[in-house]
């Protein structure tokens, strides 16, 4: 099989946007209420959670790795936040900062194992995920925790000029990510690392430090996503983050980033996240079950594979 789809990164990222527009137009015409501003706003809010996790996942994947611990980190953030709330902290910002620090810390542990100890990303993040899973049950014991952090409640329900604050938060962090990835020098080295770590190291790229940073950011954004979930749901429980592991990877792959690393952009992941939410909404509307949703998600990823990455060595 010698054909290769010669697409640029931009084309590959534009595809899911096209698909979204198509689906929204068709669904809006066929299903009443689908294309109403309220529903669209709701879908994008849901997409914000995937989008936030997707920031870290995109960065890590472009850098040549993968982060299988994001679901656990999301849950950790959701469970831990109420536990670190303390009385003098009236705005609630202290608890949020602490929670994010914990999430970033988990990511940093991944980054140390992968960047400094040379552990394969798959193994390290899988191990972190299972360890956290166990610890979480021991900490939270299976009951749900309700949130009453004022800042978080505000985040979950407020609107500025009609746009929900959580979407604005996503937009702000997304802009930061894009600026960093495509506009800074270190951002460029991430592409190099994902393409050829040895050549990058010999060219002076700070391989270990950048890797640590990528995974720490992944933990951080997963923490943000967890807080957002908490704000939207009002409560957190063990397992709240579970669906987001596959969703984050799906969003990355659907957005045209190659799972093998070295190529791609977060702009595509944004579309991937929205596309996923759109598909879920459509499936819910036609009353399909969890089983079908799962199958379609899997098929979508498989479908994107010819466009993103092949293993050159086989």
């Amino acid at each position, binding site marked *: 099989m010698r054909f290769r789809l010669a697409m640029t990164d931009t084309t590959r990222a534009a595809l899911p946007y096209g698909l979204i527009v198509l689906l929204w137009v068709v669904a809006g015409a066929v299903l009443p209420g689908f294309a109403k501003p309220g529903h669209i706003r709701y879908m994008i809010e849901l997409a914000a959670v995937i989008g936030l996790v997707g920031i870290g996942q995109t960065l890590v994947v472009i850098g040549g790795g993968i982060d299988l611990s994001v679901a656990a980190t999301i849950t950790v953030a959701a469970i831990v936040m109420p536990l670190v709330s303390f009385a003098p902290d009236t705005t609630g910002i202290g608890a949020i900062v602490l929670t994010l620090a914990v999430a970033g810390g988990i990511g940093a542990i991944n980054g140390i194992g992968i960047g400094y100890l040379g552990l394969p990303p798959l193994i390290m993040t899988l191990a972190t995920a299972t360890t956290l899973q166990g610890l979480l049950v021991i900490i939270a014991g299976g009951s749900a925790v309700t949130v009453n952090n004022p800042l978080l409640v505000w985040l979950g329900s407020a609107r500025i000029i009609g746009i929900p604050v959580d979407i604005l938060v996503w937009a702000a962090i997304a802009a930061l990510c894009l600026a960093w990835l495509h506009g800074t020098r270190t951002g460029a*080295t991430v592409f190099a690392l994902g*393409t050829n770590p*040895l*050549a990058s190291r*010999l*060219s002076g*790229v*700070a391989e270990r430090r950048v890797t640590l940073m990528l995974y720490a950011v992944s933990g951080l954004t997963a923490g943000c996503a967890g807080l957002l979930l908490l704000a939207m749901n009002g409560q957190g429980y063990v397992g709240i983050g579970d669906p987001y592991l596959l969703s984050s990877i799906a969003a990355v792959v659907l957005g045209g980033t190659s799972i093998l690393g070295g190529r791609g952009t977060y702009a595509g992941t944004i579309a991937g996240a929205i596309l996923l939410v759109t598909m879920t909404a459509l499936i819910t509307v036609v009353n399909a079950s969890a089983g079908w949703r799962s199958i379609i998600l899997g098929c979508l990823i498989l479908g994107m594979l010819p466009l993103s990455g092949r293993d050159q060595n086989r």
Partner: protein
Amino acid sequence: MADDRVLLSAAGISKSFFGNPVLRDVSIALAAGRIHALLGENGAGKSTLINILSGALPPNGGTITIAGQTLPALRPATARGFGIAVVQQELSLMPHLSIAENIALGAAPKRFGLIDYGAVKERVTAIARETGITEPLDLPVNKLALGRRQMVEIAKALFRNPKVLILDEPTSSLSAHDVAILVGLIRKLKGQGLAILYISHRLNEILDFCDHVTVLKDGALTADRPLAGMDAQGLVRLMVGRDPNDLFPPFRSSARDELVLALQNFRTAAVSGIDLKLRRGEILGLGGLVGQGQEDFLLGLYGAAEAAADRFEAGDAKAPFRDVMAANRAGLAYVPADRKKEGLLLPHSIDLNLLLPSLARSSARMFRKRDAERALTESLAAQLSIRGDRKRPVQALSGGNQQKVALAKWLPLSPSILLLNDPTRGVDVATKREIYLALQAMAAEGKAVLLLSSDTPELVHLCDRVAVFHKGRIAALLDHAAASEEAIVGAALGVNHGVAA
């Protein structure tokens, strides 16, 4: 006794990669009972020709004739079926499988669907005897040294009773003892009527036992004749197209007195006891047989491998570098031997490759300035004559141009010491000369160059001094005047004890 029956021939073969022509209208005929040498510079197209003859690659034009059939291309399975066996430079052995399994891989006799291990043992033992493999047959191949693995690879080719045997630089990692076994084996196979195609850089080998020679230069055929009456000079002239001395620019020394590097008892995993001083503007060559520690020495200097020293002075640094970034900050740059695997980001643009060390270097400025970057890559490309659209992936360039990119990317950092690992390997003749001139220009600017080269004439013609490595130590440190090919090769083989400079 040579017999004129042609077993395998190719006519009018041409092949291009990414638009670069690598072979142009090449024809070759392999006759039974004849040892046919294939000569050519690095990058002349020899490996591509072998790949086409063995079916690993299809040609873009031309035909291949075998067993009376003329075909536009071969496939690996068809070639094997016709009895063509290749021993490549890149070994096709399975590191974790045993010697016996590797030799019989893909061709083991079967009985009731299972591999007939009894028959395998018999035949493998016989072939092992012929190729001098004395290690136990159940030993995993990754426990063998590189030279021994080469012999297993050769045994593997012989296991299939080939009619045509193609050997691509089989002696490059062999000890003298194994070379002798191999030569004896080749002579015996010739007597049995095999057609043998032998690629090597070692002219003395070719003159010793080959019967016929085909010479390739820049992808085209320049000679196809019996070896009778030829000598080494004549061969070189055929390969290079001019007097060998014309390839190199006239020697000039830019070495000044000031030291940029001072080492005392520098040691890494593969070298020890290295005492060396490098002066500003000096080109110091690192010679010796492959694998005597030269590469580990460079990597240790560069901070890419563990190193220790009693005395280490490079720029401001007083101890061996802990990592590459520290070495870069002190003004060191490294161009690896394997540019595809270690030196370049193949799928990325020429621009990005040229910019990488500049982007990686720590600096106060966080954001990229695209205009400044464009201007920089434009000037680098102009400096080293890298032509064409710089947005192309760097893998679309020829080997020579890729090497230029691997070198040019360091210039914006103004390195004071350049560590070059076999910079002209796989590079065409014209580009080689460009690189030599560039090196001399950089030396004149005051940069010091450590030039590791497997090409002895390079060391002879370019270097102020040559350090010849042998078993992890510097066996001889020769001044330009004393660094003749004989002296270097002699020191490399441990024969002479050289003069310290």
